[in-house]
């Protein structure tokens, strides 16, 4: 054990002993592994994020008194949910029965009548110029802020307001807060994005770790041979080489932890698919963090030992056992086929609901498809360059070099190709989801109608709501629609709507209507439910406020002749089936009126019309809920998607940069290793320009091939993933163009950065061998 440690320590000493080159190598390895570690730490934080969220949600659940008589003070609560420009705002109106009433989580005390406590996000929205229109809905005096305990996420728009008008309904009385935690599941699209993202990000990092073992390979070979010469055995040399890798891995761990901790500070600013997390929640689970801390160095050491398996370090130098064999295709197609079969088999599996059984298959499929790129590329590059002939001397030099050895170049561009393919797939999934949001309103809305539902629609409340709406400048017309039950037998109820002709015309698009008319709406495409068959004219019924246990019977009525009409197809005309009755048809009967919705006609050209209508009924707070069938303001969600796409693009470009760093290191390494032949070429009259162009071709040819493979596999992956989540197939061509252009730029930049090294190598000193 002591010898092991001493060998590893010697490896560490050798890794940092080579001056600037060693430090640059260590920095590159640290950066590459660091990005991987940061991704792993983020992924290992997900369980903590979900459980912390679930615990807070559970703590926010009020335990209701129900039918029991509470022994101490209680909190009467009414929940209200409202929208503001596509954002959901929710909160409770509360009234304490006494000083010992439970305090809502996150609040320091129960707000009194006319007081309110707000979440930081809601407070800042109200204080911002954008929130001006919203202020009308929250006229209360602010007396505090809801802390993390009362919120699920930092961006939650929540409030707790004191209101003396909250009913003393014992069934709604909260005796305490807290309950069992319920696990929160992720949106399937989000899960898919995370899966592809993690895989696409980790792959180039793994490639980079692999490449880092080849960094300064000549120098490493030389020093390992020197160690063999002075008596280090083959096993010891492997251990020493592993020690060198270990330092890179440990540096990577430190860099990764630093990156994670830095990025973590900004986590509250990120909102992904409506989900955001608190800094405190972004904490890696301890067992997973320990696993990462142990596995990463072990992996680096094992990778290094495996890489040396085919290498024999002898005192006179290093030989490699690999024979120059022609690559075969058949087994290289296995991953792509396995991935395709796995993903095709899951078509539609994540179409709406989460399907846990599908997740491993989908992840496996993605992994397999992305793995196929580095597996296929060496074959593609070998075959493609093998066919290339002729051309200018620079082209010939590059192609001959690639024909001699294209494996390393193919492995490096494999990392680039995986990022590109992952990026293309991700961007396409997002582009498709965004299209769905942007397209939906145009196809399914009527921007001139809003429906206001009343929780407890007494005639007075309805009249008050109608009055408030009529006084709003944004409203054209207001039509109250009453719903009544027609009881025709012991357990035989039929649904009916009572409204004036204008209301019914707006609701179901009647051809003609006079007061006293009755209509029967039915769905021509589906037969009625058993027991809900058409109610025939002449049937005697009892007008009822509700049904079964809730029924409150009113007067008797005989169904008159009616006009049958088909249920309208427009989804916003959400007329239920059943009778549509105008007031005249009920003569002077005292009809029970407690369940009402108010149909509001608005001028859609009025800016923020839905917000003005919400403000109009805001004095009724929890007693109303508003459905807007017009064009919902999707700009927020589109902006969200845009920011995710931009973030992903930035991430892809960053990872591309990392892959570029590998390419650069490899190119510099090649110039260094081939210093003498390059110097000889220059000395014998080959212009430096030709040598520079040869370097450019040497980088560009494999990358171009990688680009073709990446676009093919990335697009294929995108199509299969979109089928899995049942989204329309939309390929993100502009995104592909940006990534391809970035890759092309990368080649030019790498070549440009190699030029100073080439200049040095081809100078007079390049001919010196020692």
């Amino acid at each position, binding site marked *: 054990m002591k*010898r092991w440690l*001493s060998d590893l320590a*010697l490896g560490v*000493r*050798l*890794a*940092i*002993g*080579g*001056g600037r080159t*060693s430090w640059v190598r260590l920095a590159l390895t640290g950066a590459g592994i660091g990005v991987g570690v940061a991704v792993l730490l983020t992924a290992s934080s997900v369980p903590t994020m979900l459980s912390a969220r679930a615990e807070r949600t559970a703590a926010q659940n009020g335990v209701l008194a129900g039918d029991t008589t509470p022994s101490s003070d209680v909190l009467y609560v009414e929940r209200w949910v409202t929208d503001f420009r596509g954002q959901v705002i929710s909160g409770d109106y509360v009234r304490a029965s006494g000083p010992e009433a439970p305090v809502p989580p996150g609040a320091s005390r129960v707000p009194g009548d006319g007081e309110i406590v707000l979440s930081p996000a809601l407070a800042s929205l109200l204080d911002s110029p954008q929130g001006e229109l919203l202020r009308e809905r929250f006229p209360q005096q602010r007396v505090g802020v809801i802390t993390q305990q009362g919120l699920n996420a930092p961006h939650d728009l929540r409030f707790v307001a004191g209101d003396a008008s909250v009913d003393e309904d014992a069934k709604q009385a909260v005796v305490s807060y807290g309950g069992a935690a319920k696990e929160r599941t992720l949106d399937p699209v989000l899960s898919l994005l995370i899966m592809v993202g993690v895989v696409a990000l980790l792959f180039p990092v793994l490639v980079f770790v692999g490449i880092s073992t080849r960094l300064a390979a000549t*120098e490493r070979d*030389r*020093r390992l*041979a*020197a*160690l*063999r*010469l*002075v*008596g*280090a*055995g*083959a*096993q*010891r040399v492997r251990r020493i080489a592993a020690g060198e890798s270990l330092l890179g891995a440990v540096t990577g761990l430190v860099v990764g932890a630093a990156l994670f901790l830095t990025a973590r500070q900004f986590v509250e600013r990120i909102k992904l698919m409506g989900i955001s997390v608190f800094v405190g929640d972004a904490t890696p689970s301890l067992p997973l963090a320990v696993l990462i801390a142990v596995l990463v160095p072990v992996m680096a050491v094992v990778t290094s030992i495996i890489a040396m398996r085919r290498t024999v370090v*002898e*005192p*006179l130098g290093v030989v490699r056992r690999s024979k120059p064999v022609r690559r075969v295709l058949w087994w290289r197609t296995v991953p792509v086929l396995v991935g395709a079969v796995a993903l095709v088999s899951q078509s539609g599996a994540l179409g709406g609901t989460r399907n846990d059984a599908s997740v491993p298959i989908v992840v496996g499929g993605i992994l397999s498809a992305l793995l196929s790129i580095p597996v296929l590329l060496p074959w593609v590059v070998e075959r493609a360059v093998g066919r290339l002939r002729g051309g200018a001397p620079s082209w010939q030099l590059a192609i001959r070099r690639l024909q001699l050895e294209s494996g390393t170049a193919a492995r490096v561009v494999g990392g680039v190709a995986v990022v590109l393919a992952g990026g293309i797939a991700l961007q396409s999934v997002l582009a498709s989801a965004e299209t769905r949001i942007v397209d939906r309103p145009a196809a399914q809305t009527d921007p001139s109608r809003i429906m206001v539902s009343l929780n407890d629609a007494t005639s007075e409340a309805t009249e008050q709501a109608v009055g408030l709406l009529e006084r709003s400048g944004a409203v054209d017309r207001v039509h109250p629609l009453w719903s009544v039950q027609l009881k025709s037998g012991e357990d035989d109820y039929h649904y009916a709507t009572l409204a004036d002709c204008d209301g019914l015309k707006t609701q179901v698009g009647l051809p003609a209507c006079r007061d006293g008319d009755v209509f029967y709406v039915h769905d021509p495409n589906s037969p009625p439910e058993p027991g809900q068959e058409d109610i025939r004219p002449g049937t005697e019924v009892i007008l009822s406020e509700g049904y079964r246990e809730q029924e409150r019977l009113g007067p008797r009525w005989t169904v008159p002749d009616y006009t049958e009409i088909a249920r309208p197809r427009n989804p916003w005309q959400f007329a239920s089936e059943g009778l549509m009755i105008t007031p005249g048809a009920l003569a002077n009967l005292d009809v029970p009126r407690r369940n009402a919705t108010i149909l509001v006609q608005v001028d859609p050209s009025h800016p923020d019309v839905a917000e003005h209508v919400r403000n109009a009924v805001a004095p009724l707070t929890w007693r109303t809920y508003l459905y807007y069938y017009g064009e919902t303001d999707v700009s927020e969600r589109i902006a969200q998607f845009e920011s995710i796409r931009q973030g992903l693009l930035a991430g892809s470009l960053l990872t591309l940069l990392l892959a570029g760093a590998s390419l650069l290191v490899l190119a510099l390494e090649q110039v260094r290793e081939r210093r003498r032949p390059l110097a000889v070429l220059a000395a014998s009259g080959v212009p430096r320009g030709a040598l520079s162009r040869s370097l450019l071709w040497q980088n560009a040819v494999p990358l171009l091939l990688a680009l073709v493979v990446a676009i093919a596999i990335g697009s294929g992956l995108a199509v299969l993933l979109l089928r899995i989540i049942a989204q329309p197939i939309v390929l993100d061509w502009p995104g592909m163009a940006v990534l391809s252009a970035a890759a092309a730029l990368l080649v030019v930049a790498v070549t440009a950065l190699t030029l100073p090294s080439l200049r040095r190598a081809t100078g007079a000193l390049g001919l010196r061998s*020692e």
Partner: protein
Amino acid sequence: MSALLEATDLRKSFGPTPALDGAGLSVRAGEVVAVMGPSGSGKSTLLHCMAGILTPDSGVVRYRDVELSSLADGERSELRRTDFGFVFQFGQLVPELSCLENVALPLRLGGTKRREAEARAKDWLDRLEVSDVADKRPGETSGGQGQRVAVARALVTGPRVVFADEPTGALDSLNGERVMQLLTTAARETNAAVVLVTHEARVAAYSDREVVVRDGRSREVEPVR
């Protein structure tokens, strides 16, 4: 006196090219033997086979009556660490370590504690007149200094045989002379044998006897003094 190291009828080919074709050499304790010959004659291959670095296709190398080919890789590594020392034309120093660490390296690989290994290494750097480069890396020293550091490293473990392959090949004549003086003097002081591969007569002049290798075969010659 019986031979300390003896090679008999060695044959070694690299692919279709024969490097050794029945060469042999016998070395006694404390003597300096020069192996001479033109480029490509097989003299370096003979040295590598005798040091256990290369395994001959046929023939026998015996060190203290033990056949080297019968030893496992680990045993041969140990032999190189304890009984053999090496000085090559270049490339034998670890560029990442300082000169002092390079000299101490064989001792440390053998388990000697760092402080003690470095103290002994310092002594040898003093003897070879390069203590001023102790903290420098090999790349920061001149060719002559680097070779003297290599000699110090070859001798620090007290080897019985030092293998020197063109040790002055990359040095000017003045530096070459100095390195040879120091190497042979130190070897004689410690009773170490030296197998010296060279194609230069003035380097061979430091030896007790000379062997010429030509076309893979060896022949002993009387030195011309």
